[in-house]
């Protein structure tokens, strides 16, 4: 046995060893979608942990009025970097890059994505962009203090290192575009024989809709970021009222991307939940067509509602009316999904294992996030709570309670397949429970605080907000403890837990029909698909 093999955890097989290559180069230059998927997973997850740490620090600062552990400038930098890291480095590339890459090609019965080398290039671009963003924190005028939205005119005038950070985000955006191009082409061209559009797993449908948002919306972010840099370096004055520019046009351009971007974050999460629920209910999905359609509908309608971020900005009343109406339209396909998930659960033989618990809490937390979104989507109520902690709470319910919990669900559902070993069930459930409780204490109090009028992004606050802020910070610690238990258990399990078979959960999608861990070529011979993704009987699963 050579030393390289010793470094591998026992029980590895499949793509871990069958190329005969080990060492770092066999990973960072690999074009295998599974290796790239794991590269993405570990990189985005690393940034997630950084973001969590920053978030905890923000909560400690807000635990009591006045200065607690840091000064105002540090605080401004902290919430900016927390936002940039979580949005651009974790959750936007997260699902597509990691689980999209790991699972999607197998689910459609393909050996790899359409452009494997482009796929690797996307990861490299992501890493390069992330490195540039990290560099911007420690060079020039220090970390940006604009908030992750980079609003002009402040982002033009601040002395902090905005230009470099924005350039890093531009590179990450380019990576996202290339992943979108790759995935749309893959899903059009590389489906196995018999894998019709009507037999596509719903996770793949959600990735398809997401990839289109990446293709059509991300370039607008690209040009917007270029404009910020031009504004700072060349003094183009396009958003400077003194020179005929209009700062609101920046907000339009920014949100034309950044609202659809929340659908890049949430659509794949919905796809994950749609995979988990039927498997753990032992029932075919209810309303396959409507769920597939609603993914596309959310992507389409969600691209036309950006103005609801600007109700108090001085935008025209006509625009407020139009954007408010369109925002309510998005609720329809979202509700279609929720109703179909609940209908799938109805009279199912439900087993409450870790992935299922995350999927179920997704439904609850996403519904709270979605319904509070309607409060923000209606202009009359939005003007009251705009830019308060209510928005912070709402957003985290959707993106952390929704996408984040689905991400953990996906980790528990799919990672054992690729590592060949699984976690222990009881600590996972304990971790989930603590996270769920801590999460609600943390963010629900934020919504209450917002209703009472506490603004977001403020360093200090009035004494009457002190008690709930303290409660919220306690919630963040409970959440952190739960997260630690969950992750230690999961990663220890993947290293040295019990081996898992090919189909531990009894799923009917193609990834469960091949060996664990999957071989590099995925399928020994090209599969011919004869049954739907949730046709458990057709797949021969008892």
């Amino acid at each position, binding site marked *: 046995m050579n030393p390289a093999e010793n470094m591998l955890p026992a029980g590895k097989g499949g793509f871990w060893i069958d190329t005969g290559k080990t060492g770092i180069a066999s990973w960072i230059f690999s074009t295998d979608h599974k290796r790239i998927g794991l590269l993405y997973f570990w990189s985005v997850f690393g940034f997630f942990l950084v973001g969590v740490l920053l978030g905890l620090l923000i909560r400690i600062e807000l635990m009591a009025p006045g200065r607690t552990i840091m000064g105002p400038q540090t605080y401004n930098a902290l919430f900016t970097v927390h936002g940039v890291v979580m949005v651009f480095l974790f959750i936007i590339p997260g699902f597509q890059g990691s689980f999209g890459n790991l699972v999607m090609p197998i689910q459609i019965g393909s050996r790899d994505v359409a452009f494997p080398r482009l796929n690797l290039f996307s990861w490299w671009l992501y890493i390069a962009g992330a490195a540039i963003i990290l560099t911007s924190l420690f060079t020039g005028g220090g970390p940006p203090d604009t908030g992750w939205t980079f609003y002009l005119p402040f982002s033009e005038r601040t002395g902090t290192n905005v230009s470099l950070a924005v350039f890093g985000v531009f590179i990450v955006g380019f990576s996202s575009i290339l992943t979108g191009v790759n995935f749309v082409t893959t899903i059009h061209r590389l489906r196995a024989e018999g894998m019709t559009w009507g037999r596509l797993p719903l996770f793949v449908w959600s990735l398809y809709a997401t990839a289109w948002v990446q293709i059509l919306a991300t370039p607008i972010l690209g040009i917007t970021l270029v404009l910020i840099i031009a504004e700072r370096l060349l003094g183009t004055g396009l958003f400077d009222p003194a020179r005929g520019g209009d700062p609101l046009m920046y907000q339009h351009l920014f949100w034309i991307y950044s609202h659809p971007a929340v659908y890049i974050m949430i659509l794949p999460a919905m796809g994950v939940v749609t995979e988990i629920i039927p498997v753990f209910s032992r029932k075919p999905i209810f309303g396959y067509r409507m769920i597939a359609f609603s993914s596309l509908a959310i992507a389409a309608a969600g691209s036309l509602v950006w*103005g609801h971020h600007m109700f108090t900005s*001085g935008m025209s009343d006509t625009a407020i009316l139009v954007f408010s109406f369109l925002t309510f339209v998005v609720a329809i396909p979202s509700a279609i999904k929720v109703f179909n998930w609940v209908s799938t659960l109805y009279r199912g033989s439900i087993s409450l294992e870790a992935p299922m618990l995350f999927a179920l809490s997704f439904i609850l937390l996403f519904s709270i996030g979605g319904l509070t979104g309607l409060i923000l989507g209606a202009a009359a109520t939005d003007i009251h709570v705009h830019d308060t902690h209510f928005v912070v709470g709402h957003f985290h319910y959707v993106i952390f309670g929704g996408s984040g919990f689905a991400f953990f669900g996906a980790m528990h559902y799919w990672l054992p397949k690729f590592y060949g070993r699984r976690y222990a069930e009881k600590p996972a459930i304990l971790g989930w429970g603590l996270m769920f409780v801590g999460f609600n204490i943390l963010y629900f109090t934020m919504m209450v605080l917002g209703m009472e009028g506490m603004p977001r992004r403020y360093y200090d606050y009035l004494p009457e907000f002190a008690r709930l802020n303290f409660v919220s910070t306690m919630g963040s610690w409970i959440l952190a403890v739960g997260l630690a238990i969950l992750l230690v258990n999961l990663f220890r399990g993947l290293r040295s837990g019990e081996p898992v078979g090919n189909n531990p959960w009894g799923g009917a999608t193609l990834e469960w029909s091949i060996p664990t861990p999957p071989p590099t070529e995925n399928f020994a011979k090209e599969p011919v698909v004869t049954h739907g993704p949730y046709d458990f009987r057709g797949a021969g699963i008892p």
Partner: protein
Amino acid sequence: MNTTTHVIGYRTLTAVWLGLMALTALTVWVSRHSLGIGHVWGSLAIAALKGGLVIAFFMHMRYEGRLLRGLLFVTLVTLACFIGLTFFDVLYR
């Protein structure tokens, strides 16, 4: 999408080029002779016509399957929506 390839003859391509040149001359001429803001739309219409020729012949769209055409259509509609919805703000502020 079929993979059979269609070869466009040199003569067709040259005819398209002549058409593009003629339209360029026309758009310059129009800008010098017609006054008022209305000619922005006129120039854009000519530009759209030229763009259509480039897409249809130089870029072979005329000979592609329904898929590519449909996707191009979706893209252009999306861009039009982005611009159009922004004008709900700009025109009524």
